[in-house]
């Protein structure tokens, strides 16, 4: 439901209105949740969302202007970071009205955190090959199986769960998408330590976990198309995901609450900005190391900047197309792949600049070990959210329309397919 251009305010008026509203309503001693709920009600929390659900149907230019105004005013925005935004995008597209009204408010207020229960030990790239089972029993579904690499599962209260509901049909047709309550006896979460020392993802074990019937998102056995929406949003390298690990400061009780939220919830995600390679730090580091006039380093930095800028613009084009209601174009998958290239290039330049100190951690290392953290976090970007190889396949087959890889796993009942 894209708005008619005639109804859209011009940017200057919009900025003035936002600022006036903030001047009247922003109070750093208000409760964080109360404030976010207020902001969400105005539609300025997520202006690009539909009008009936906390939004204003704005294109990204105007939505960004609102966000920019809120940030420069020094006020706190709605909770937009993390997996919650993937849940929101999925619910907005496939959820029932009841599900939207039940979940969207808690997402924006920050009261609820979410996780994405897709990958399993036996199936990652081949997501549709998953074997966690959901069996219908009377007035609920019973879940058994194991998920892995589940970011945020250790604190999330809701999970987007993809599970198998029919084993006798081809793999993509027997999956159902559920919203599962994470805080229940049948769900056990164990954190997994990563190569960079953090533990932002987990193993999740389901033993007779319960999901009420009205928590099916989309159709029974129609979970695959719902999951594709989640994945498409994840691959757009949502700004919200990038914002993880960063902290907004200010004075007033509300900032203390925000800091507490950041401390408890965001600690395992401190490395998130680093997995993108931190190209923003390259020039200052080169200057600090007195290498900004070194011709070899300059070439490497220049190459990185060209790559970075072009991929930012490509991501912008993807966002714009989406907000104008146009179908997801090739820019989506390209953006994810481009981000991998940028991250790797940035890590190389950082190594070049830091030299022998690149791997020093803590106080011994450049930027208190941040450079080392970049080098150890970048490998995640080409795996999480669908590997680079899978992005290549998607681009070749779906965007370029190239002949599909001959497949033996799609036209048979799932139970007959070899698996790990």
């Amino acid at each position: 439901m894209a708005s008619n251009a005639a109804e859209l305010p011009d940017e200057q008026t919009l900025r003035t209105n936002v600022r006036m509203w903030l001047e009247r309503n922003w109070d750093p001693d208000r409760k964080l949740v109360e404030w976010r709920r207020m902001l969400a009600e105005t539609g300025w929390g997520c202006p690009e969302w539909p009008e009936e659900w906390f939004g204003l149907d704005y294109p990204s230019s105007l939505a960004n202007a609102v966000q920019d105004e809120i940030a420069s005013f020094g006020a706190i925005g709605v909770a937009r970071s993390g997996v919650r935004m993937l849940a929101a995008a999925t619910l907005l597209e496939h959820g029932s009205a009841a599900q939207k009204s039940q979940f969207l408010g808690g997402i924006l207020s920050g009261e609820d955190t979410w996780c994405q229960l897709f990958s399993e030990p036996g199936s990652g790239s081949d997501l549709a090959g998953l074997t966690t089972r959901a069996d219908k029993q009377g007035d609920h579904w019973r879940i058994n199986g194991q998920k892995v690499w589940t970011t945020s599962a250790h604190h999330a209260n809701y999970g987007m769960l993809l599970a198998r509901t029919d084993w006798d049909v081809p793999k993509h047709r027997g999956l159902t998408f559920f919203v599962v309550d994470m805080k229940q006896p049948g769900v056990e979460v164990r954190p997994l330590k990563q190569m960079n020392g953090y533990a932002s993802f987990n193993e999740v074990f389901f033993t007779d976990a319960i999901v009420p019937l009205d928590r099916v998102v989309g159709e029974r056995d129609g979970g695959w198309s719902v999951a594709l929406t989640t994945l498409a949003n994840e691959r757009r390298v949502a700004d919200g995901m990038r914002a993880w690990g960063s902290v907004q400061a200010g004075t007033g009780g509300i900032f203390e609450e925000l800091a507490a939220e950041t401390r408890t919830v965001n600690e395992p995600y401190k490395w998130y900005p680093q997995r993108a390679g931190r190209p923003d730090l390259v020039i200052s580091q080169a200057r600090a190391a007195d290498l900004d006039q070194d011709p070899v380093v300059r070439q490497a930095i220049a190459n990185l900047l060209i790559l970075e800028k072009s991929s930012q613009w490509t991501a912008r084009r993807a966002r714009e197309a989406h907000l104008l209601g146009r179908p997801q174009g090739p820019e989506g998958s390209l953006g994810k792949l481009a981000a991998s290239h940028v991250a790797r290039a940035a890590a190389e330049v950082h190594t070049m600049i830091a030299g022998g100190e690149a791997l020093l951690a803590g106080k011994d290392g450049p930027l208190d070990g941040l450079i080392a953290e970049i080098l150890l976090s970048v490998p995640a970007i080409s795996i999480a959210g669908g590997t680079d190889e899978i992005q290549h396949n998607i681009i070749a087959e779906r965007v370029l329309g190239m002949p599909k890889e001959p497949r033996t796993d799609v036209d048979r009942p799932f139970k007959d397919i070899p698996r790990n």
Partner: protein
Amino acid sequence: MKFSFTEEQALFRDIVRRFVVEQSPREEVRKVMETNAGYDPALWQRLCESLGLHALHIPEKYGGQGFGAVELCIAMEELGRGLVCSPLFGSSVLAGTAILEAGMAQDRELWLPPLAASERRYALAVDEGGGCWDAKSLTMQYTQQGDTYSLSGKKTFVVDGCSADVIVVAAREPETKGLNGITFFMVEASAPGVNRRLLDTVDQTRKLAEIDFNNASAKLLGTPGEGGSALERTIDLCRVYLSNEMVGGAQRLLEDAVTYAGTRLQFGRTIGSFQAIKHKCADLLLHVELAKSAAYCAAEAAATGDPEFSALAALSKAMAADTYVKTAAQTIQIHGGIGFTWENDTHLYFKRAKSSETLFGQPAWHRERMLRGWQI
């Protein structure tokens, strides 16, 4: 041998490989890397007693085995393959080579036998922060009063510097520049004025130290002021030894990647049956083999005193580093999510690859040195 190994050398490789597999499995590596010392004394003793690796390149007259650079490179490659945590590299390879290159007969007689008898462990302190171990940029000056010498200043990236008994230090005569005036000293680690600190590095398998010298008393090694070319040659030799260690690690990673790709199923088939993965592995093999050829060729050049040695050392270091880092990153990629975990061993190699990439100077710097070595 430059393009093939002799039967004895091949046999020696097998022996070292078997020792590593049996004595230093990866659980052992993980255990030892968590300790401050960074090595297991019992394992080190076995490595010395049953293989004599600690004295491999030390001439027989000083109690060593009298082998050359090629044999030492074979040992390094095998230890690199197994990611073995031992004082071999810091003590015998780095410090031992410095003593061999810089010491006069009486110095060697004094310092090498305790090393060859594995009674004492040494470390080599050269770099002061640039990371290139470049002789010309040394700034630490020694002070002389009659026959006694003392050192003040800071050295860093000292491999196994905290666990060594004696530190071999390169410093310079006051008022000298470039290769002139460079002089080697031996400093007892326990001497007053020596302060050592373990650096916090993410490659836990190789311990590095920062050492502060504050008027520490030092014994001369070699002729005062004449150590410049010995230092350059020492570091070049160590670059070649490190290159061989790196290709050993890269080879092992490639094998891990191929094995995993052959067992992991997605879409009803092994991931190794996808050309994306197959081509990646084939490409890695290409690079690993190229890097091995470079490392072996440089080893031979070290053994024969090839006039191009320095350029070849630079070439092999750049090639091995790029290859090891690339292989490690791709091996993580081929493993998918599990490759990013602490539990999987790939990250241990990834970290060793990254720390080796910059130790003794990084690839771009070596590429430039290679060209200069060839007068280009």
